[in-house]
């Protein structure tokens, strides 16, 4: 029973991680560097939604316990984060003439600028969206599952977005171009693909999804200027687990990391859960180490299988 509840929680948290990790992996694949500003792009999205929601108020009909304005705020989160990402590409990354390590270091600077500006405007204190707190859905409680309609919105929206991205990548020319460019940027240019445009599209998609992930993170917890940076390493762990540059790997990695993160309580009573294992067996690691365990998994994956669990060999 407990496992089912944790699985449900895991699914909610995974959805947020997946939204972050897809964008990070796309950028890693196409712009070819580890973008340390990706977490703070999520923060930007979250605060854009906060402003929008504040301006619109909670008027309008309510849907899944959320005012209609929230969904507009969600869109604002996508749009603002995407715009900020594109502006950063144009102003900062594009003019640089340094390798991927230089870009990595630059992105740390970008992360600080985002976070510093958010903190200047909104203060370092945490904030909440002006939406009603919900009780868990009654019908599911007997099963040990305590999720609210907000959680359902998070999961469903993420599934829709991920599905849309899948269709985009698999069945549209734009998606094929993006995959082609991640595969072989030189050949992509030679084939006539306008690679600078594809790069911009990548930033729009990656930044936008991060923005939505940030809005949901704010709904799931609270908003604070550090929220994205705090999540960044988990998102990296997901990307590495799935294989850098692989969008589908990032989805899988995000799902697994989210699950591991939320399923920590299970570790200490492994014995009672697994058949054939004595009840007393367990890894005595508390939930306060949830993230630490994810990081250790990430390092282990890097050592054993640097191409990730879904990555191709070689």
């Amino acid at each position, binding site marked *: 029973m407990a496992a089912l509840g944790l699985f449900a929680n895991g699914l909610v948290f995974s959805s947020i991680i997946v939204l972050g990790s897809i964008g990070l992996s796309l950028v890693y694949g196409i712009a070819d560097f580890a973008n340390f500003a990706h977490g703070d792009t999520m923060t930007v999205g979250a605060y854009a939604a906060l402003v929008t929601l504040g301006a619109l108020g909670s008027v309008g009909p309510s849907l899944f316990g959320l005012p209609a304005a929230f969904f507009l705020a969600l869109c604002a989160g996508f749009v603002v984060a995407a715009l900020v990402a594109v502006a950063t590409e144009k102003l900062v990354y594009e003019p640089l003439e340094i390798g991927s390590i230089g870009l*990595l270091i630059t992105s740390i600077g*970008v992360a600080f600028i985002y976070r*510093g500006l958010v903190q*200047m405007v909104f*203060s370092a204190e945490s904030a909440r969206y002006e939406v009603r707190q919900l009780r868990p859905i009654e019908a599911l409680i007997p099963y040990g599952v305590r999720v609210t309609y907000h959680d359902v919105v998070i999961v469903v929206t993420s599934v829709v977005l991920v599905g849309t991205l899948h269709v985009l990548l698999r069945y549209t020319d734009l998606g094929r171009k993006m995959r082609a460019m991640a595969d072989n940027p030189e050949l992509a240019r030679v084939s006539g693909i306008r690679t600078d445009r594809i790069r911009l599209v990548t930033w729009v998609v990656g930044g936008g999804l991060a923005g939505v992930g940030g809005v949901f993170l704010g709904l799931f917890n609270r908003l604070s200027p550090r929220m994205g940076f705090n999540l960044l390493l988990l998102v*990296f762990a997901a990307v590495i687990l799935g294989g850098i540059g692989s969008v589908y790997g990032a989805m899988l990695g995000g799902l697994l990391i989210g699950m591991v993160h939320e399923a920590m309580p299970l570790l200490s009573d492994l014995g009672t859960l697994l058949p054939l294992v004595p009840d007393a067996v367990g890894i005595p690691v508390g939930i306060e180490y949830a*993230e630490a365990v994810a*990081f*250790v998994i990430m*390092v282990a994956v890097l050592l054993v299988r640097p191409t990730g669990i879904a990555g191709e060999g070689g």
Partner: protein
Amino acid sequence: MVDIDVDAGPLGEMTATEQGVTAVVVAFGAVLLFGLLSGRLAPTYFLFLVGLAGMYALLSLGLNSQWGFTGLINFSVAAFFGIGAYGAALTTASSSPVAGGFNPAYGLVVALVAATVLALFIGLPTLRLRADYLAIASLGLAEVVRRVVLNERRWTNGNLGVRGIPGFFDGWPVLSTFPEAIPGLRIAVPLGATVELGEPFYRMLLNVLLVTVFVVGSYLLLSRVHRSPWGRVLRTIRADEDLARALGKNTYRFKLQAFVLGSLVMALAGVFYAHLNLFVSPATLEPITTFYVWVAVILGGTGSTRGAVFGGVVVVVLREGTRGLAGLEGIPLDAPSLRLVLIGLLIVLLMRFRPQGVLPPQRELIWPDVVDEAPDRPETGVREARGDGDD
């Protein structure tokens, strides 16, 4: 750079940048002097700043021997700084949950041993990884360390931190009673009110002495090993690891050694911090410290020892300067945000316009010297190599 006039005076030997840096340093020194003389800058606070600058210089020196000499992207600087601070604190503090109250000298030893163990814990698995993975993995493991310090209250007091850390020289002969023994001084400074130099001032003076010893010691050691055959292999690894391997160098071992060495210097900074601040908390291990130090090293010039010291000083100016700036009326900004934005801008602008840093190392690293007067006669060995004025 090659056609430097050897016969010119020390200024003539400098490059334009070096002259610029010298000018800035002199001007900055003049401002500080004015502050001191006018009584606007309390001497004790001034010494505290000097101590902080020394601390950042140490951290930069440590990172420089990893990134600058060897090309290792270590994003776990804060973990080593923290382990140094906690090692010293837990050994010496009255409130230590483990076994406090020891002489700070023991704390120093404990901190260095702990840092070595941690360096092996982080370095052994990650140093085989390619550069960007090493960055992410070391940041991840540093976070693991921070969580442990935060959560293992039995050992670390957790969030509460460790109080009651003695000064480094407490319990030493003469030095422990020096601040009390020296009579207080009242000095009428020429441009302002009288300044009182009492016990706190002398305590701080001792701290500055301590950090000076640490910095000078580390500087001499690192400069020396950098030019040694050992350091030469590190520099070869940085330029072309495969070449070093093909020439029979066990590069993994060299990288591990450089990693441990740098980490020890960082831990030294942590030890100093514990005895300067007399209180440590898990905030010491926040990743932001790591990035401050990165800014210092990149700003100074990757691989440049004097650059690392310069970068460390600039970062302190930036950190403390933003405090002052935000305090001014009419600027409704809080210091931490402003500092973040400024540090961020500094990184972005550096990478855009001067990725090699302000004082890049070409000149100080080339040995035997470019401006060698007798090129056809071999030098006699590394220790006899002439000390050139440029480092």
